[in-house]
C-alpha cells in the first residue's frame, strides 16, 4: 500500500492552532538551512553527538546557554544559579511554566531524570557530567548538584551535547516525536531525501511567538558549496553554513545576500611527536614551528581561518592575546643545524598524517612541504581517514599529527586535559607529551575556573607558554572562522561559537 510522503497525509489546517496573530505581518515563509551533509543520525538527546546539533539546539534546551559576548553561561531553563564549597556544590533555580512538547511539565524532577538518563546511557558526550556525584530535586524549581571535584557546572550545562533537558518518557529514537522544551518540533523527517528535515513551531513554547518569527524551518542537504551558493542567490535557501573564500567575497557584494563572519572554537593542531623519532629533539620541533608560513596560510585561507594566538581560541576563558606565531626560516634553519640537519647537512625525513578530503589541512601540507624542502626536510604527508589516522596515532606511528580540536562545552580545559595531559595509552595526547609539572597544573584548572577566574586565566597562560614555547609540542596555525551567508531579509542572526553551525531560528525574524 502507499504511504504518503510530505504532510503525513493530512493537509495542513487552514488556520493554525494559536489563533490569529496579534498584529504585525505574519511570517508564513519557511526558513531554509543548507547543511552540507545529512542532518540527523541520532535523535536521542542523551547520546546525540554529531551534525544533528543544528536541529536539536532548536528542539531542546539546556539549563544554560553560553553567551558569546560575555563569555559566560546565560540563563535558559535555569534562571539563576549559585555554586558553593569551592565549586563542589551547585544549585540551579528553574524556570516556571515550561512545558515539554509531550505536554508534561518541566520541573526539577524531570531535569534530574533527564540528566541521570543521559549519564546512564554513557553515549556521546555524557562524560561531561563526570564530576557529578549526586543530583537532588530540592523542590519543583530547585535542582542541586553535589560534585566529586570542582567543575564549572554552569558551562557544562551549556554544552551543545548531552546537556539537553527532555521528557525521559517521551524520547523517540525514530524521529517522529520530540521530547524537548525548545521552540520547534519535528514536522517531517525523511532520511536520505534532499529536504531531510522540516521543523514547525511548538505553539506552547514558554517564550511565546511573535508574528515575524519563522514558524517553519527546513534543512535542505547540499553537499556542493557551489550549488549551495547558487541556491542562496536564487533565494531557494536562506542560510549556508560555509562558503569558500572566493564565493564569500562574491557574497559580500551580492545584494540579496548578507554575510556574517566569526571565529570558531575549533583550531588546527599540528602535534609533534615528543616521544620518539627526530622530533624528540625539541630543536627540531621548534624549527618546524618556525617553518610554518602562518601568514601565507591565513592569506590563502582568505578569512576561512584566522591566525591563532595560543592554544585557546578567542572567546573562551583562557585565551591569551599576543601569542601569534611567526614564520622565521633563518632561525628555523639555525635550529635545524644545531640538531644536525639542514641544506648542507643530513636530510631530515618526517612523516605527517592529516585528514583526507580536508582542503584547509591540505593547504597547510602543501605550503609546509614546499617550505621544508628548501631546508632539506622531506615531508611524507599521508592523507588518512580519521579512524585510520587515529589508529596509527595511538600507536605513535608518525612524526607529525594534524587534527582539529574543539571543546564539547565552552571551556578551554578540554585542550589541556585531552590533548596534553600525559597518558599511558594515548587517546588524543598525540604529541605523547609526558610532563609531571604540566599534568599537575592541568589537574588544578577546573577548581580554579570554578572558584577563582583570575587565577585560572593566569594558569592557562603559563601552561600555554610551557606547552607551545618550552616544549614545542604543538603548533597552532589558525582558528577556523565561520563565513556564513544568509538571505538579506533575515534579521537577528548571531553566531555562537559554542554551538558550531547552529542557527537559533527562534531569534530570527523576516524583514518585510
Amino acid at each position, binding site marked *: 500500500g502507499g504511504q504518503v510522503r510530505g504532510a503525513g497525509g493530512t493537509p495542513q489546517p487552514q488556520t493554525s492552532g494559536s489563533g490569529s496573530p496579534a498584529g504585525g505581518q505574519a511570517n508564513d515563509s519557511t526558513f531554509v538551512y543548507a547543511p552540507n551533509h545529512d542532518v540527523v543520525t541520532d535523535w536521542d538527546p542523551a547520546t546525540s553527538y554529531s551534525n544533528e546539533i543544528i536541529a536539536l539546539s532548536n528542539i531542546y534546551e539546556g539549563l544554560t546557554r553560553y553567551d558569546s559576548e560575555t563569555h559566560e553561561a546565560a540563563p535558559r531553563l535555569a534562571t539563576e544559579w549559585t555554586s558553593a564549597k569551592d565549586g563542589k556544590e551547585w544549585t540551579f533555580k528553574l524556570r516556571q511554566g515550561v512545558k515539554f512538547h509531550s505536554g508534561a511539565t518541566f520541573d526539577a524532577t524531570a531535569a534530574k531524570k533527564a540528566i541521570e538518563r543521559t549519564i546512564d546511557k554513557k553515549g556521546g558526550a555524557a562524560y561531561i557530567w563526570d564530576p557529578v556525584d549526586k543530583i537532588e530535586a530540592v523542590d519543583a524549581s530547585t535542582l542541586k548538584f553535589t560534585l566529586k571535584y570542582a567543575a564549572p557546572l554552569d558551562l557544562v550545562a551549556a554544552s551543545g551535547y548531552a546537556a539537553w533537558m527532555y521528557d525521559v518518557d517521551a524520547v523517540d529514537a525514530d524521529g517522529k516525536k520530540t521530547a524537548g522544551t525548545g521552540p520547534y518540533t519535528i514536522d517531517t523527517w525523511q532520511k536520505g531525501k534532499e529536504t531531510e528535515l522540516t521543523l514547525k513551531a511548538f505553539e506552547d513554547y514558554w517564550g511565546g511567538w511573535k508574528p515575524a518569527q519563522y514558524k517553519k524551518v527546513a534543512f535542505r542537504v547540499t553537499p556542493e558549496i557551489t550549488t549551495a551558493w547558487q541556491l542562496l542567490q536564487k533565494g531557494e535557501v536562506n542560510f549556508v553554513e560555509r562558503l*569558500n573564500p572566493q564565493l564569500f567575497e562574491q557574497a559580500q557584494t551580492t545584494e540579496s545576500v548578507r554575510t556574517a563572519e566569526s571565529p570558531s572554537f575549533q583550531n588546527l593542531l599540528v602535534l609533534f611527536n615528543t616521544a620518539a623519532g627526530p622530533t624528540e629533539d625539541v630543536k627540531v620541533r621548534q624549527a618546524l614551528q618556525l617553518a610554518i608560513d602562518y601568514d601565507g596560510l591565513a592569506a590563502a585561507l582568505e578569512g576561512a581561518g584566522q591566525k591563532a594566538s595560543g592554544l585557546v581560541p578567542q572567546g573562551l576563558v583562557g585565551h591569551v592575546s599576543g601569542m601569534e606565531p611567526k614564520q622565521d626560516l633563518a632561525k628555523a634553519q639555525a635550529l635545524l643545524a644545531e640538531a644536525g640537519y639542514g641544506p648542507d647537512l643530513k636530510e631530515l625525513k618526517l612523516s605527517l598524517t592529516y585528514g583526507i578530503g580536508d582542503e584547509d589541512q591540505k593547504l597547510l601540507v602543501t605550503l609546509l612541504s614546499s617550505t621544508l624542502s628548501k631546508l632539506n626536510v622531506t615531508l611524507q604527508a599521508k592523507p588518512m581517514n580519521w579512524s585510520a589516522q587515529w589508529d596509527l596515532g595511538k600507536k605513535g606511528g608518525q612524526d607529525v599529527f594534524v587534527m582539529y580540536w574543539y571543546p564539547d562545552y565552552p571551556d578551554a580545559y578540554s585542550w589541556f586535559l585531552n590533548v596534553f595531559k600525559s597518558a599511558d595509552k594515548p587517546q588524543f595526547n598525540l604529541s605523547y607529551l609526558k610532563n609531571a609539572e604540566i599534568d599537575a597544573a592541568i589537574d588544578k584548572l577546573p577548581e580554579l575556573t570554578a572558584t577563582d577566574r583570575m587565577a585560572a586565566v593566569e594558569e592557562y597562560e603559563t601552561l600555554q607558554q610551557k606547552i607551545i614555547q618550552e616544549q614545542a609540542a604543538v603548533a597552532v596555525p589558525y582558528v577556523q572562522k565561520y563565513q556564513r551567508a544568509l538571505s538579506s531579509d533575515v534579521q537577528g542572526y548571531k553566531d555562537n561559537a559554542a554551538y558550531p553551525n547552529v542557527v537559533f531560528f527562534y531569534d530570527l525574524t523576516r524583514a518585510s
Partner: protein
Amino acid sequence: MTTETQTQETQPLRRTLPRVPDRFAAFGAVLIVVVVLAAVLAPWLAPYPVDDPRPLERLLPPSGAHWFGTDQVGRDVLTRILYGGRTSLFIAVAVLAVSAVAGVTLGVVAGYAGGWIRDVIMRVTDVFLAFPALLLSLALAVVLQPGVNTVILAIAVTWWPWYTRLAASMAASIATRPYVDAARCLGVPAPLIILRHVLPNSLTPVLVQLSLDAGGVILTSAALSYLGLGAQEPTAEWGLMVQQGQTLFTTNWWVVTFPGLAILVTAFAFNVLGEGLRNALDPRRAVK
C-alpha cells in the same frame, strides 16, 4: 558469423589497416602526439617550477605572465597542467599495461583451454565485472592510502576483466581454427601454441580496445581524484586539479576549466584513435 569478419580476425594487423587511414583517427593520433610531447617536455616547456606555491599570487586570472592563471596557492596552472599530463598519462599507460598483460594472459589461457579452466577464470572475471569499478577503486584507495600507485592498482584491478573477456572470446575462436588444430596434431605443446598462434592472432582487437580505454582510464582516475582518493598534493594531476578547483567554478573559472579541458582533449584523442582503429578493423566489437 560472416566469412568477412573471420578473415579480418586472422589477418595480420599490418594488412588490415586501411590503406587510407581514417582522417578522424589520424586527427586523434596527432592530438595524442601533441599531448604526449607536452607531457614529456614539461620540464622544458613549463614557465614555472611545478611545486612553488606563492600564496600571495594566488588565483590570478589568465594573463601574459600566467597564460592559464594561478591556483589557490599561487601556482601556475599551465605548469601544473603540463606536469599533470605526465601523471595522468603515466597512470593510463601503467593501468593499461598491467591490466592488459594480466587480462590477456588469463583470457588467452581460458579461451584456449576451455572446460573447467575457462569456467573458473570466466566466473572470477564475471565477479570483478559485476563489482562496480569506481567503488572497488574507491575501497582500494581507502585501504592502500591514496596516491598515484594506488590509483594505478585500483583501476587495474577493475580493468583487467575486460581484456580477459575480449581475449578469451578471441582465443576461443582462434583455438578452433584449423591452423591451431594442425599445430596440435604436430605435437606442439599447449603453452607454445598459445604463445605462437593464439596470442598473436588475438591481439588486434585488444590493441583497439587499449586505445579506446586510455581515455576511460584517465577519466576514472580523474573521478577518483575528484572524490579525494586519487593522486595527492603536491602531485600535479588533472583530476586532482579539477577537484581542488571545483568550488571555484563560478568565481575563478580558469582553475577548473583548463585541467578539465586537458582531460577532455586527451580522452577525446584516445577515443577518436580507438574508434578509428575499431572502424577500420572490426566495426562491431563492443565498446565498454
